[in-house]
């Protein structure tokens, strides 16, 4: 058997070579599947490793708490809480920041640091420059991302408004902190141009805010088996008299939360999309093998007649399939490595981990290859099974002539509607409904992948529009350090360019319902609010009813309350009132875990007069600069946010990521589409070469004959595109369901342009495939058909 086996192997190599374009196109689809799988999963693993490794080396805290002002002596009591291993207290304050040449105000988060005795946890890594000299006034280290976003350099000066007094700071170094891997003023948007983290001398900062001997921020590291929620409860209890705002664990720490969500998305992308790629690859492999085996009936019969048993023949075709799969796997592992590297790089840049670290676990390559091999073997076995059942003599006879029948359309009496050429096309489709269906499914799959991969930018764009054009419609938001009388409205209205002022009040709160609680804020809005609107996912407006609280539906679900139920609201500010409040409604907001009340009701709940904590302004664009200059001079205006700048930054950041993913997915989907369409056309051509050549002899032009063959594909593509739109919609819905999390439900919004783009890519892939096949149609052997039987 030894020498005959090597003859079979030679046949294998020649078969592969004669089908090389098809082999390569299938291998590429497999490579996309494996590459996407490996790329996403290795990125997931690498980012998780980078994050955890960073947390470990920087000793990231487990619990974070803020208070208004707590005495330093309290630290001992905190250390005594069961499960607490280490305690770090510090002063942290947000202040208005200005740098020369930038008109819109920025926010600085000032963190007091003892540079002589570095903290035992939450270690800040110096990236450039030096630490401020101990006790030195007017020096600060800034987070590297702000420096880069603002194109600043060491030695540059900036000024911050410390407790109403302007203080000049010189940048002496840049740093990274595990607490601000993702730095933001609050929302989930990267905010590097407008939000700076500044580490400055602890004593100076404490003095500036009258915080000597006191702290307002505390970080805890816990022992290995400590209960996070148990520690938080005790910590809150201790801090409460000192204006505690409620402690949070890592899960609710802003930066951690955002990067964890991003990392998790990688895992979802890595499972859903590559599964589809592998499925399509298996399908194409199956069809090609079927055809291959079918065309080699005679050879198989001869082999059987020569005494080869079924095992050898099946093995031969398994080798054929696995050669293609292995080629795809090798390409796929390379592609996955490249993709993983690129994506990890992209995220490392976004997150600014202290070091770039990419690794591809060997199991990923093995798992990807194994999945593809299983798919290929499935196809090969299904294809060979039918042939192996044949007796040698049967296999030697030509297959029975193709039988056709009249189309459904014709049986219904509409025969006259079709020309003979159209009938040929339609009858071929109708004769092999399964094949047509699977082709359509394959093409629809690539349309769906394109839609599901690229609709994100639509969802984001729509989200921005709703968030900033329909909900938060103010041009400029002003936040006050302390509540101010409502009359501030009149003062603001007199500022240059202001056309409308709307005030709000926000109070940090812990809402309790039975044993469940959630820390958030209650926002009080005026009855006639139009700059701050509450909209549900269908853009219906909701308003808080008199005397009660309106909750984001997700928050109500988390607290397990319904309209009519009563909550305990523990206000974490001012008189720290604890009071029962009725839930009067819920609203399906896209983002956030919000509680809304009427402004008057909220102030009454807090047992305060008519005070407000923030204001939204409508501003004439031309006067914006003048307004911002004036706001800088208003000591009470601690935070000034120009909404437009938020959106711009966000768009810039997401554009880069979106472009990368769109490009990769477009290439992937086009590969699939070409794989399906090209292989199908080749198979059809092989099956119908005789018929098409006969027509050429009868005087049909190359073009007319091409139409007969490619018309079928055109119909399949035309049918696949709307199906793909539908599948893409559902796939997008699935991804959204998998990726939505507590504070955000991604909107399922797909713009017509995305459908158009997806359809166009697939049509283009079809045209390219058709052109390649067309070349073969042009070179049909006309003379041979006169002499041979099909």
């Amino acid at each position, binding site marked *: 058997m030894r020498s005959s086996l090597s003859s079979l192997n030679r046949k294998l190599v020649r078969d592969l070579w004669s089908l090389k374009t098809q082999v390569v196109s299938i291998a590429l689809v497999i490579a996309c599947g494996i590459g996407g799988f490996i790329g996403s999963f290795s990125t997931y693993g690498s980012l998780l490793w980078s994050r955890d490794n960073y947390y470990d080396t920087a000793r990231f805290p487990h619990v974070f708490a803020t208070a208004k002002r707590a005495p330093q002596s309290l630290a001992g009591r905190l250390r005594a809480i069961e499960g607490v291993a280490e305690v770090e207290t510090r002063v942290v304050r947000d202040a208005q920041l200005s740098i020369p040449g930038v008109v819109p105000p920025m926010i600085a988060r000032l963190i007091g640091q003892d540079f002589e005795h570095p903290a035992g946890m939450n270690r800040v890594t110096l990236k450039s420059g030096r630490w401020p000299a101990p006790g030195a006034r007017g020096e600060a280290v800034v987070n590297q991302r702000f420096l880069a976003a603002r194109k600043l350099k060491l030695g540059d000066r900036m000024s911050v408004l410390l407790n109403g007094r302007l203080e000049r700071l010189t940048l002496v170094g840049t740093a990274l902190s595990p607490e601000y891997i993702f730095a933001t003023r609050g929302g989930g948007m990267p905010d590097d141009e407008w939000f700076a983290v500044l580490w400055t001398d602890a004593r100076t900062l404490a003095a500036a805010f009258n915080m000597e001997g006191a702290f307002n921020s505390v970080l805890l590291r816990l022992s290995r088996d400590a209960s996070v929620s148990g520690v938080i409860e005790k910590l809150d209890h201790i801090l409460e008299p000192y204006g505690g705002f409620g402690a949070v664990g890592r899960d609710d720490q802003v930066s951690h939360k955002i990067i964890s969500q991003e990392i998790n998305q990688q895992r979802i992308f890595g499972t859903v999309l590559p599964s589809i790629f592998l499925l399509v690859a298996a399908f194409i492999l199956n069809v090609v093998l079927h055809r291959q085996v079918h065309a080699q009936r005679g050879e198989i019969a001869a082999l059987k007649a020569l005494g080869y048993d079924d095992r050898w023949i099946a093995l031969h075709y398994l080798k054929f399939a696995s050669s293609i799969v292995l080629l795809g796997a090798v390409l796929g592992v390379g592609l996955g490595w490249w993709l993983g590297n690129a994506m990890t790089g992209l995220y490392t840049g976004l997150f600014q981990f202290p070091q770039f670290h990419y690794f591809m676990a060997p199991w990923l390559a093995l798992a990807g290859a194994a999945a593809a091999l299983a798919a290929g073997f499935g196809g090969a076995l299904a294809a060979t099974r039918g042939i192996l059942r044949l007796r040698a003599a049967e296999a030697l006879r030509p297959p029975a*002539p*193709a*039988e*056709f*029948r*009249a189309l459904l359309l014709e049986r219904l009496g509409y025969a006259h509607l079709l*020309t*003979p*050429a159209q*009938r*040929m096309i339609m*009858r*071929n489709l109708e*004769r092999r409904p399964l094949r047509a269906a699977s082709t359509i499914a394959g093409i629809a799959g690539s349309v769906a992948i394109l839609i599901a991969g690229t609709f994100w930018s639509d969802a984001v764009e729509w989200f921005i529009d709703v968030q900033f054009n329909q909900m938060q419609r103010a041009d400029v938001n002003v936040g006050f350090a302390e509540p101010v009388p409502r009359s501030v409205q009149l003062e603001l209205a007199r500022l240059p360019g202001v056309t409308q002022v709307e005030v709000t009040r926000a109070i940090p709160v812990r809402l309790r319902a039975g044993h469940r609680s959630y820390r958030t804020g209650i926002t009080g809005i005026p009855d006639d609010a139009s700059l701050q609107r509450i909209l549900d996912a269908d853009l219906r407006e909701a308003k808080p009813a008199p005397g009660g609280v309106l909750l984001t539906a997700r928050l109500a679900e988390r607290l397990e309350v319904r309209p009519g139920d009563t909550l305990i609201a523990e206000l974490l500010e001012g008189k720290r009132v604890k009071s029962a409040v009725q839930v009067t409604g819920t609203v399906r907001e896209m983002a956030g875990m919000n509680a809304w009340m009427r402004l008057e009701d909220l102030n009454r709940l807090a047992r305060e007069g008519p005070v407000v904590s923030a204001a939204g302004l409508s501003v004439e664009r031309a006067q914006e600069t003048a307004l911002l200059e004036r706001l800088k001079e208003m000591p009470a205006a601690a935070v000034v946010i120009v909404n437009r700048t938020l959106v711009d930054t966000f768009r810039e950041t997401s554009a880069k990521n979106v472009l990368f993913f769109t490009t990769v997915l477009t290439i992937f989907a086009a590969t699939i589409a070409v794989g399906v369409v090209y292989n199908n056309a080749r198979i059809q051509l092989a099956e119908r070469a*005789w*018929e098409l050549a*006969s*027509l*050429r*002899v*009868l*005087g*049909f*032009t*190359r073009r*007319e004959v091409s139409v007969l063959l490619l018309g079928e594909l055109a119909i399949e593509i035309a049918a696949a595109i709307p199906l793909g739109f539908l599948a893409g919609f559902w796939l997008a819905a699935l991804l959204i369901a998998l990726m939505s999390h507590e504070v955000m439900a991604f909107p399922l919004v797909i713009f017509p342009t995305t459908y158009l783009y997806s359809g166009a890519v697939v049509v283009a892939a079809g045209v390219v495939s058709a052109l390649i096949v067309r070349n073969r149609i042009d070179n049909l052997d*006309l*003379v041979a*058909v*006169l*002499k*041979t*039987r*099909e």
Partner: protein
Amino acid sequence: MAAAAEAVFVARGLTKTYRMGETEIHALRGVDLEVRAGEFIVLLGPSGSGKSTLLNILGGLDTPTAGSIVFKDHSLSRADEATLTRYRREHVGFVFQFYNLIPSLTARENVALVTDIALEPIPPDEALRRVGLGERLDHFPSQLSGGEQQRVAIARAIAKRPDLLLCDEPTGALDYETGKLVLEVIARINAELGTTAMVITHNAAIAAIADRVLRLGDGRIVGEERPARKLTPAEISW
């Protein structure tokens, strides 16, 4: 009758050489030929005699390496692919040994496929009636016998009113009785419509039904004869 008609084809010094791997094959070595309108020619010769090559050139499937061939007033000697396609489409009707019908089309549709692109065609139904298949218009090839399929092929070939009907071993795949039936149809079309017909065969018995018989051997015309009495297909046997 044939002698008086104008020449449809004039071929002078037709030569065709192929390269087949290392060796050069001389398929035609200088063939001179005139075909007159309405003639019924039978081309006889063993395999390798060059008869298929000659048919390919007359049918516009191939061009000669040297020599000239003129159909009516246009030259096919150096014609490009598009010109040859148009020539086949407008002037030539092919009948193949294996019928080469389109399996997905009925008899009528197989004919209509050609009449749709022809200039002044015979309606498909009439063409099929002429070959005796008026009752089987809506049958698919898989529902027809070999002889019936070949008659559909003839109907398809004549429906465009070709200047030349080229039949390549039209009886090669058929049994004796069916083969004679097919020859009768070809002879009748030649007689009734005046279509110039050329039948290629290695079956010498068929020669008796022709106006003129050309014998090919080794790439040359080695003999030409005009049967003293033209027989009908019914009168011959082999």
